[in-house]
């Protein structure tokens, strides 16, 4: 290492550690120090977990980055929820269409979600279904009582809260129960397929999307049309759910498997029929036209 008398002449310096051999306590920073990268990443993800700051080796971070695993931000931070909205318009469209057309070999979670469950679809489909149910029920009640002079039209706003309670509890509590059940069975026996809670919520949310056009069709006061649409909607959404959960319980005890799948289908039926009977007036049950009462 050359040292010149002129201090302003450019000199080659060795590694900082060598220069300060006399003084070991001095801190050194070298330009290609890769601690800068994880530092930037941990500030970008907000409240990073404690493991980030104590990771001294840059290679581990780079390997993790390359393998696609991101450091998970804290549950209470905004960024935690942002990764459930990491989708685009065409993704949502594909998922909705995929939930309406079940295919025997295609598992909704594997084909459409691909490890990227989103909260956008379930939340907005549930909200749309709530308002669609309340509004369609209101219209169908009005149409059913149209000729009746004693009937006074009311907007029936209370039904919105009732519909919201029913539909949101179906879309969030049933997946919780399903997830808990699958977790319990996974403890009892080894299973290759296991679903995350968000993926189950996603499947349930998207499977409700077939009911939105069904609910609109229930406005028309034809009994046969209503029951036809119920059956079709039940078949489609029920089969999407069954096909999704079949690989998870396939290796289980046959009785458990049948019980589990039939409970899923039963809850689905209960939701559809319950909504239909509570919110919609069945035409023909009430004497709507004056001519009926005179005969």
């Amino acid at each position, binding site marked *: 290492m050359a040292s010149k008398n*002129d201090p302003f002449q450019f000199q080659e310096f060795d590694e900082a550690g060598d220069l300060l051999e006399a003084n070991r306590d001095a801190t050194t920073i070298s330009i290609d120090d890769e601690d800068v990268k994880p530092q930037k990443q941990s500030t970008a993800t907000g409240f990073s977990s404690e493991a980030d700051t104590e990771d001294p080796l840059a290679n581990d971070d780079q390997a993790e980055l390359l393998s696609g695993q991101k450091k998970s931000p804290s549950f209470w931070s905004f960024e935690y929820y942002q990764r459930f*909205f990491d*989708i685009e318009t065409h993704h949502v469209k594909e998922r909705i269409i995929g939930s309406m057309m079940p295919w025997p070999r295609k598992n909704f979670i594997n084909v459409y979600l691909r490890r990227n469950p989103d909260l956008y679809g379930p939340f*907005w489909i549930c909200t*749309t279904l709530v*308002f669609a149910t309340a509004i369609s029920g209101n219209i169908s009640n009005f149409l059913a009582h149209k000729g009746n002079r004693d009937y006074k039209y*009311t*907007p029936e706003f209370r039904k919105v809260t009732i519909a919201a309670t029913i539909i949101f509890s179906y879309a969030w509590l049933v997946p919780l129960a399903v997830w808990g059940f699958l977790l319990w069975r996974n403890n009892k026996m080894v299973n290759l397929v296991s679903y995350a809670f968000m993926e189950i919520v996603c499947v349930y949310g998207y499977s409700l999307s077939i009911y939105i056009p069904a609910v609109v069709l229930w406005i028309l006061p034809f009994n046969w049309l209503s029951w036809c649409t119920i059956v079709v909607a039940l078949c489609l959404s029920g089969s999407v759910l069954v096909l999704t959960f079949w690989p998870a319980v396939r290796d289980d005890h046959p009785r458990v498997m049948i019980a589990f799948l039939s409970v899923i289908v039963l809850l689905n039926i209960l939701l559809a029929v319950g909504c239909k009977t509570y919110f919609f007036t069945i035409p023909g049950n009430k004497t709507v036209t004056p001519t009926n009462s005179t005969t």
Partner: protein
Amino acid sequence: MAASEEASRPFAGLSDVSISEDIPVEGDISVPVGPSRRDDEFSTLDEPVKDTIMRDLRAVGNKFIHVLYPKRSSALLRDWDLWGPLLLCVTLALLLQGGAADHEDQGGPQFAEVFVIVWFGSIIITLNSKLLGGTISFFQSLCVLGYCIMPLTVAMVVCRIVLLVSSGVIIFAVRLVVVMASFGWSTFASTAFLADSQPPNRKALVVYPVFLFYFVIAWMVLTYSP
């Protein structure tokens, strides 16, 4: 060693340079601040109350005009305020009262329900837009969504006036047309302000909740029955 000593003190050669005492070195470190001039610009404590109120009212009125003629201007976004949305929400909630009063349970929305729908709806849409990666700030979005309720409030006023006359089928058709026109206007006005802040592959995802929000409010306006 002299060499290593030299290396560790690269500016050692400068140690014998000193400033000549003949050169006067003096100055003032303090930064001159003009306190009276600043207070005149930013302090509004001394102005008459009428000026303060008129300034805010003028800002609110200015934004109403921007909603009426929605161009892609940033006036609504830059100086957000929540007075306009509050005024509109209270007016709408008051106008929605007094309908179908004989059935307590099956009537129209209560005052608090309208408030909840408008404010929580706006907050949820704003959160949705931010989670999808929008660049608009929280209160700016609330401001835009609140101000764009104005066409629907105008439609509500029109509906109530029209319902004073009669309540037949023709009147219903008139109300339907007015409400649909104002719903379209509200949605168009708010997307003109909000859509620019989103990446292009997610625009529909942000616009749809806005559409749903104004649709629900339009439904409440349309189904008001005296």
